[in-house]
């Protein structure tokens, strides 16, 4: 099996070195970059399986880098930032297309665990629902990981896709927040309640005909979310 390639972009040399060393020890193939522009260049040349982005950086900040990456690929992106005053900051990061947002300082072991979880999430193919879903407006092809809305192919990040799949598997049933977190992100994420909120709204923006009045992904207040199949 090919080693997994990870790109670490951080302007603090001490940090990217430490993180790089740890990941290499865990058997990853690591590329380091000292600023946003350099990071973007490295992404295009190396085609990493996972990108770790600091936010505040010279040349180009992490959010921009993430957006650029999202324009061309669905590679999982993990934000690792010191900037996390409020939930808002995290939401901004996730909205830029990141799959994961870690706040510095993070323990190395936890960091590695999150990296592995994110990779697992992005590579996982759910065997249960082979058929996928198609109602004419929205179609989901689980095998090829393709999603079409109104005939147009759309890009979903691995986390968004995984979220849609979990909801689809439980179509018609309310999936509680904690269960959603456990299934999509992993058991260690069950308390990060703002993750689903952000991703659900992103997903709605991509698949709902009118994101303000969703018909597919419905919110059960203070409980969780429910996918409602539409008949045409």
């Amino acid at each position, binding site marked *: 099996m090919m080693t997994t390639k990870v790109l670490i972009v951080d302007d603090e040399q001490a940090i990217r070195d430490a993180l790089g060393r740890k990941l290499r020890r865990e058997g990853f193939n690591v590329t380091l970059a000292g600023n946003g522009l350099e990071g973007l260049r490295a992404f295009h040349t190396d085609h990493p399986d996972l990108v770790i982005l600091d936010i505040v950086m010279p040349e180009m900040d992490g959010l921009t880098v993430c957006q650029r990456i999202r324009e061309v690929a669905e590679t999982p992106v993990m934000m690792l930032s010191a900037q996390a005053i409020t939930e808002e900051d995290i939401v901004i990061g996730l909205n830029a297309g990141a799959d994961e947002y870690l706040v*510095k300082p993070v323990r190395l072991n936890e960091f590695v665990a999150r990296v592995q979880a994110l990779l697992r999430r992005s590579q996982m193919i759910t065997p249960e629902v082979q058929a996928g879903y198609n109602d004419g407006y929205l179609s989901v092809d689980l095998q090829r990981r393709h999603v079409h809305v109104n005939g147009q192919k759309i890009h979903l990040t691995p986390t968004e896709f995984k979220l849609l799949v979990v909801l689809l598997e439980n179509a018609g049933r309310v999936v509680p927040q904690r269960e959603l977190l456990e299934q999509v992100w992993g058991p260690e994420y069950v308390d990060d309640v703002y993750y689903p909120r952000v991703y659900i709204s992103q997903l709605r923006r991509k698949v709902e005909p009118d994101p303000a009045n969703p018909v597919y992904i419905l919110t059960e207040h203070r409980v969780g979310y429910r996918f409602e199949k539409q008949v045409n």
Partner: protein
Amino acid sequence: MTPNVAVLVFNGLTLTLSLGLLILILWQDPTSEANRYFSLFLFMVIIWASGSFLGRAAAYVNAGPGTIQMGLRLLDVGFSGASISIYIYSAVITGVQGRWFRGVALTGLGLVFFYQVLLLIGNAPRPFEVSADGVLRYDFDPVSVALYLAFLGATVVLVWRDRRKIRGRALIIGILLFALGQMAGLLSPRFRMMGVAEIASSIAALIISYGVVRQQIMAPLLGRAKQLEAVRDVGLAITSRLHLEETLAAIAAQATGLLEADGAAMFLKNNSRLQLAAVYNLPEKYVGIELPLGSGVAGTVAVEQRGRRVEHYYRDWKGEEDMPWARKAFGAVIGAPLMFAGEVVGVLLVIQGRQGRLFDREDMHLLELLGPQAAVAITNSRLFEAERNLLGDLTTAKERLEIVLTGTENPVVAIDRQFRIMFANPAAVGLMNASDDLAVGTPLIERVPRSYLPQNAGRALRDLKRRRVHVYEIGTQERTYLCHVAELGKPRAVGWVAVLNDVTQLKELDRLKSQMVQMTSHDLKNPLQAAMSYLELLNEDGEAVFNDDMREYLDIIWAQLTRMYRIISGILDLERVQAGTPAYELCAVDDVLRHAVEEMGAQAQSKGLDLRLEIDCTLPPVLGDAQQLGQAFINLVENAIKFTPQGSVCVAAVVRNRHVVIEVRDTGVGISTEEQPRVFERFYRGQQQGLARSSCSGLGLSLVKAVVDRHAGEISLESTPGKGTTVFVMLPIADENELE
């Protein structure tokens, strides 16, 4: 007509006149002392005249000597009585009588009567002769003559000396004529024979009677017009003057003129003292002297609330002097209280010099007429003065307030209940969209944009009702104001006043401070990440080569780095709570508490503490940010566990006064009284011994307080060192209406 006939006619005339006058005087006023003695005099004159008439008539018609004798006896009695009573009367009207006077005079009168009665009983024949033409000639015995002369002489001297004290010249002339006529009759037998005494006394009685009638009956009637005029003058004087001093001076002058007196003094009551406020014809330098109530004539009048007459101040007034030199200078004094609404407001004293006339009842009446007028005038002047002072004060206060309000840079606007502008200072006008003159009375909404008004009007009104003040923020294009609205008027609001404080600069400073704190904290996070990461790598790499000491050192470094991290996180948490907008929603307090207790369960267990949650009833929801509240209660429980070496930590909640009251009770080390007020301060750490100091940042409780404050709650604590601490958090129960 022979002299005898003339004498008879005069005798008869005297008799009739005296009788008529006697009836008239007694009918007019029998209580007056002067009238009583004058009546006595008239009575004596009647006896004397009738004796004379009887004797002469008997002689004329040649009746028996017995009848003549009888007439002469009566004449004797009447004559002595008349001489004595004219003296008494003169003494009374000139006011010279002392305390013993009346007794002596009446005793004298009694003695004379007794003497005459003795003569009558002894039947000593009265020597007389009747001339050929029937004229009666008679003699007095020398004792009687001496007696009569003494009294008549005394009368003449008295009346002449004190002539100024007798009102009405007719009285003086009459009395003198009477006395001189009688004396002439006594001294000269020729005159006696001619009936000079009878003629003189008839005329004198006529003159005296005229005087008395004029003084007692005519004068008051004639005086009415004068009094009315005087009272009207006083009224005019009062209404035309506004200053109290002028009014008082006018009243004093009027009273002096009205009573034909020499001077007047006006006392005003101030608390329990009388103060000389105005004088007329008295030394001005005494104005301002004070007199205690009850002392002096004025003080006595004020206490008794009744007028008072003193005939001779130097002789009769035994109390304190009303003013310096009064005893030397004052003769008759009359004082009247000035009453208004049942209260004495002052005393008016009218004064005669030592040679001045006496005051009588009529004068008292007059003064009593003047009194209420003066009292009203004084009260009016005082009210007017008070009003003028009040007006002055109000004007000054208003001007000052206006200067303050106009000068201040803070916009101030007052509106009435219909939300129309009542007042706006220039700063406020500058904020409104009318640069022209501000139309007071225009609705506020026409002058300011909606965004300047409270966002939640219902909440604002509730605030005003509960706390009488509502505070909210107004943001204009470039400035931020904190607007304090308060109700105007009590108990019912007539409107509202809003004072705006420009907090733009403060806001900016606060923002810079927050930014600074955030930046610093973030900048610290990167080195922290690097240091912690390398320490972890070092731990992994050195596993084989480190000895126990080295591992311990590395653990210490790790602990310190962790602590640093906690401090930074604490600062950022606090900043987040204070700067961020809480995500308000309906929170179930019991869920929040249960979660906090679950979270901290392991920590409590590791210390062997009993951590309990006691909620008996269903708690109503509060409006808040569940995450912030959760963090706050976790901090509280964590803190309790930290400071409790053994025993229990209990979280309880009850509903009280529209609030959910949450208690976090521990059996820990407690907090000393001095430290209690400070525990919610930033970075404050207790002085307790033997605790792992490195594990606290000193920010946990300040975060709790910040969160509670943001939720309009209250936090307090009770603690006994060595026994434990209870922290109380009160959160207002959510008002469903407030959640829009």
